[in-house]
């Protein structure tokens, strides 16, 4: 397997993993009745934005420009989760949501964003090692990732008004 294929498969796997994590957080919210909060949704949107950058990379050929954008999305998501961690660190605002494997979801989100930053750095190093331009490809794997993202967004669009209506969501 050459370095171009490794890049493509890594991008695709990255999208699948992030989609799976958003889906797990979504299920966690309904199955274990996680407390609904707007910053959690913003963290999920940041993960979806990272997927967008990687999907565009697969669609038009891998470029450093979209890895840079992915880093911006990671910084945004990490900022929101860090804000939420510091918010709940205050004794006046204790978190009432149940922990998952010892940590709350927003703490997991920060760990995920740190892991994403590490992965994008590795992908950028791999890109720098690639001599030829990587050709765009839109195969079955990319179409499945696109469908997965669309389904995640549709499910959120359907269930957010049920939980908090059309106005500002209560934290």
């Amino acid at each position, binding site marked *: 397997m050459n370095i171009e294929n490794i890049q493509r498969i890594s991008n695709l796997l990255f999208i699948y993993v992030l989609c799976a994590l958003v889906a797990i957080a979504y299920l966690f919210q309904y199955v274990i009745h996680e407390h609904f909060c707007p910053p959690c949704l*913003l963290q999920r*949107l940041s993960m979806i934005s990272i997927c967008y950058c990687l999907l565009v990379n697969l669609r038009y050929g891998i470029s450093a420009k979209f890895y840079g954008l992915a880093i911006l999305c990671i910084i945004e998501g990490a900022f929101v989760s860090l*804000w939420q961690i510091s918010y709940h660190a205050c004794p006046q605002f204790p978190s009432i949501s149940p922990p998952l494997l010892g940590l709350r979801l927003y703490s997991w989100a920060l760990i995920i964003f740190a892991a994403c930053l590490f992965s994008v750095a590795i992908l950028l190093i791999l890109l720098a090692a690639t001599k030829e331009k990587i050709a765009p490809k839109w195969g079955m794997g990319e179409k499945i990732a696109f469908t997965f993202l669309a389904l995640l967004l549709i499910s959120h669009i359907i269930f957010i008004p049920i939980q908090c209506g059309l106005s500002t969501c209560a934290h």
Partner: protein
Amino acid sequence: MMIGLFIIYFISLFLILKNQSLAFFIIIINILLSMLLFFYEGTGTLRIQL
């Protein structure tokens, strides 16, 4: 508010596949909108509670 952002993201998913420059522009707009909503909704809630 949040529902609006999710709808914008859903429309963006189809638009990013049209053109590379458009995709770049749309992703930046999405990031800015998310940050704007965070400052409006997230910190707004904190101010009310304080």
